[in-house]
């Protein structure tokens, strides 16, 4: 059966002859024979495409949680938003999909311009003049924001609100082991960060706050700005970009850096990746910007052209002194986001955000009426996600609701840590359910969901 290799027997013979070799094996003469794999790899032999597809389909059948089967109320940074066929068709064009990083701008104007437009859109959304061409995901964008903050101030202390997504804080902590940043977690109360709890912390280079935070709550960013002013620390806002469509922008609140997860703009749930790390900052920090940046310029004929720029920051030139080690990023998702935002436009973007807020309010109100169910974050305003305290473990509720056709949300203890630590907090987390409601959810779905939850928690 053919594979993807075009070499005919004659090709191989002719090429080997040209090289003066007798066999393909001799190509590997440099490899010490003692190291060579004897008897072939311990992998099955290749199977034809249709069989591969059939296997993938059967695995896919094993995913009960498909959004086309369970109505999705899960969020926590990954949202079931509308992606129209037109966006898939455009972002899926093979020129965008099968290109490399635009090292040769003359034949990469298409991708470069799309990223330039993406940068402009992110810059406008976050209210900051500089936005890069993407990072891996929201988590990695937070890491880079902290690195920038510490690098810019020379102070390694970082205040991190506990409202930042638990996974992202975990990633921050992992990488801080290398960079040596001193992360100080700032606790929440009723869904808002208690900055006063860390009033004594000194030597702070950056303050990180999420807006809205992972419990869906709006934080007081004016307070964060003055905290930063007082300490000459950089203010880094982890912004939900859909919320940013109706909330005051990070830039407007005075943020130096704004980061976020861009999955909501045209990328499927995809079991968590590839997603899209958004990164924007003020002009002052452009030379510390991680990742790639596209700029406008002219060609030899004076014609407008685009090119990756300020390359001197990057590791291929700067090596161990680079501002970041990011090389391959998530350009295709950035192009996708540009297409999706182009499709939404000014009114559609606002409309999606407004509809999310409406649907969330509708759902939250209905749920608060259920016996034994109460909001976890008191009366703090939430945007498109909220946390409930259930009378039963949230995991149990999720399990039961799956049988009724709903992915009910994310059990907080699953998000916070795999096992919990047996404390009272852990017990609270076990009963916490995080529910997200996007513009795709209908009143009918929500009504049924509320009824099913009512039944499930009895």
């Amino acid at each position, binding site marked *: 059966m053919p594979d993807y290799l075009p070499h005919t027997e004659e090709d191989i013979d002719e090429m080997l002859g040209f090289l003066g070799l007798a066999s393909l094996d001799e190509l590997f003469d440099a490899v010490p024979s003692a190291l060579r794999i004897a008897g072939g790899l311990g992998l099955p032999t290749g199977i034809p495409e249709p069989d591969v597809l059939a296997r993938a389909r059967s695995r896919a059948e094993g995913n009960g949680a498909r959004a086309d089967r369970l109505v999705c109320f899960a969020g926590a940074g990954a949202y079931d938003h509308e992606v129209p066929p037109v966006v898939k068709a455009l972002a899926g064009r093979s020129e965008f999909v099968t*290109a490399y990083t635009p090292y040769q701008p003359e034949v990469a104007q298409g991708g470069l311009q799309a990223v330039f437009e993406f940068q402009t859109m992110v810059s406008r959304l976050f209210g900051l003049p500089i936005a890069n061409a993407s990072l891996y995901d929201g988590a990695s964008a937070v890491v880079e924001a902290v690195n920038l903050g510490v690098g810019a101030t020379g102070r390694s202390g970082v205040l991190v609100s506990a409202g930042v997504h638990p996974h992202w804080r975990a990633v921050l902590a992992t990488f801080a082991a290398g960079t040596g940043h001193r992360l100080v977690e700032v606790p929440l109360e009723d869904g808002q960060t208690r900055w006063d709890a860390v009033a004594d912390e000194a030597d702070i280079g950056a303050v990180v706050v999420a807006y809205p935070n992972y419990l869906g709550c709006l934080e007081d960013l004016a307070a964060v700005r003055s905290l930063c002013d007082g300490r000459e620390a950089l203010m880094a806002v982890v912004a939900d970009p859909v919320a940013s469509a109706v909330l005051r922008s990070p830039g407007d609140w005075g943020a130096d850096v704004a980061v976020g997860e861009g999955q909501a703009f045209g990328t499927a749930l995809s079991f968590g990746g*590839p997603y899209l790390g958004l990164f924007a900052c003020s002009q002052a920090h452009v030379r510390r910007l991680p990742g790639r940046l596209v700029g406008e310029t002219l060609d030899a004929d004076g014609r407008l052209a685009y090119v990756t720029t300020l*390359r001197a920051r990057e590791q291929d030139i700067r090596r161990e002194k680079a501002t970041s080690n*990011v090389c391959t990023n998530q350009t295709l998702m950035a192009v996708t986001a540009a297409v999706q935002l182009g499709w939404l436009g000014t009114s559609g973007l606002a409309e999606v955000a407004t509809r999310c807020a409406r649907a969330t309010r509708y759902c939250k109100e209905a749920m608060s009426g259920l016996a034994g169910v109460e909001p976890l974050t008191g009366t703090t305003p939430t945007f498109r996600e909220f946390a409930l305290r259930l009378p039963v473990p949230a995991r149990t509720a999720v399990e039961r609701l799956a049988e009724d056709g709903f992915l009910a949300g994310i059990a907080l203890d699953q998000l916070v840590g795999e096992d919990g630590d047996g404390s009272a907090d852990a017990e609270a987390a076990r009963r916490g359910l995080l529910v997200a409601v996007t513009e795709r959810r209908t009143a009918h779905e929500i009504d049924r969901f509320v009824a099913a939850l009512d039944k499930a928690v009895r």
Partner: protein
Amino acid sequence: MTDRSAPGGRAASAPLVGRDSEPTIFELSRPGRASWQLPTTGIPETPLEDLVPDNHRRDAAVDMAEVSERDLVGHFTRLSHRQYSVDLGAYPLGSCTMKYNPKVCDAVAALPGLDSVHPGAPAALTQGWLATLVELEEALCELSGMAAATLQPAAGAAGELTGLLLMRAFDAARGEQRRRVIIPDSAHGTNPASVTLGGYEVTTVKSDERGCVDIDSLRDALDDDVAGMMLTNPNTLGLFEEDIVEIAASVHGVGGLMYYDGANLNAILGVVRPGDMGFDIVHLNLHKTFATPHGGGGPGAGPVAVAPHLTEFLPGPRPVRLDDPDGPSFGWQTPARSIGRVHGWHGNALVLARALAYIEVHGGDGLLRVAERAVLNANWIRTRLHGTFDVPFDRPCMHEVVFSAAALHRRTGASAHDVAKGLIEEGFHPPTVAFPLIVDDALMVEPTETESYETLVALADALERVAARAEGGQLSGSPRTTPVRRVDEARAARTLIPTFDARR
């Protein structure tokens, strides 16, 4: 030629009918136009004022482009016509492994049962995904000769940093705090950058006249402050480090770990395994070796596989097979001394699914053929162009070959960069230029296994013509046939215009 960037539905901005610029989407925009459509939900239309407190609400909507669906389609379709891609032609970028990616992998990644699954759904509802991840991990371990792997890192560089943090954790666990990591001077830029982020200092060792690690320099650099060494093999010159066993033994001898940068794994699939060469940590660039299209810059995936003594430090939670005959077959587990998460969820899952499909369709036998053909192609190009360009380290190469245009440059004033631009006019994407740094005027050609003999001949012919044009001093105006001509990179950095709003 004027720079007409007129709005309107002309295809003029597509190369098909000319070379006019495509306006930005913001220039095509007109207030009041739109293309979004959202589902009917029946949810009460509460005004935004009642949903978001005044002090949090923005005054005006974010100004985005406002276009009809028709103009959206025209715009991005025209942009796509201004973009080279593997699907259009050969893309012999050295170190990048721009092979053709079978479309069946795209089809797998687009299955609704894979791409519409929420990453936070419980394991019982995501058994298909867990199976995918576990099977991929097992295949990668077999290919690399390692014991276990994390699939979380989103790209090669993320894998490198993960690997360095594993080194740290390993050091810490044995109560040490080593400070240095050794890398060869030919290493890819991400290596030193990752070392720094991993909290280590870089010690660079020179390459010898054969283009390989200079064993003596290496020995000089080694002491018990060395946490490990990062190496690709074949190295970035496309040469196999023949002394690899000795190198590994030396590093191990001072208690250091060997890190394998897997960006060049394509050359040795099924031939030799990093584990057997003595490596302890291996990252793999799935977007190079395992045929995920590069997306114009990403996404990729950079799983990290490790030897048995490092598995307990791997990031978590990890997808694992479960033994319970009554329960689900797969679950999540966090290793005892895990360094923690390195990704917001489980890694670039759809990329991982593609890689598994790629491995399945090729099988163990097919992957060996991949390596053989890749190496055959590179050596053919090397031998064929031997007289046209210098080959600084002139011996059989693996999957890529580094030429130097230095002599040509001195003689004619045409640099590797100029050669690249000349090749564009010939219809090919140029090789990598200016990397690796240790070769002057480097032209790094990696044909990959999916290009045919005819394509190699055409590419070689084209490079010869370009060299001849260089001798005739005719390269400086190249390329002439592209949507834009040579781009002023210095100007872009000098007068930074990173957004449409920064345009004057």
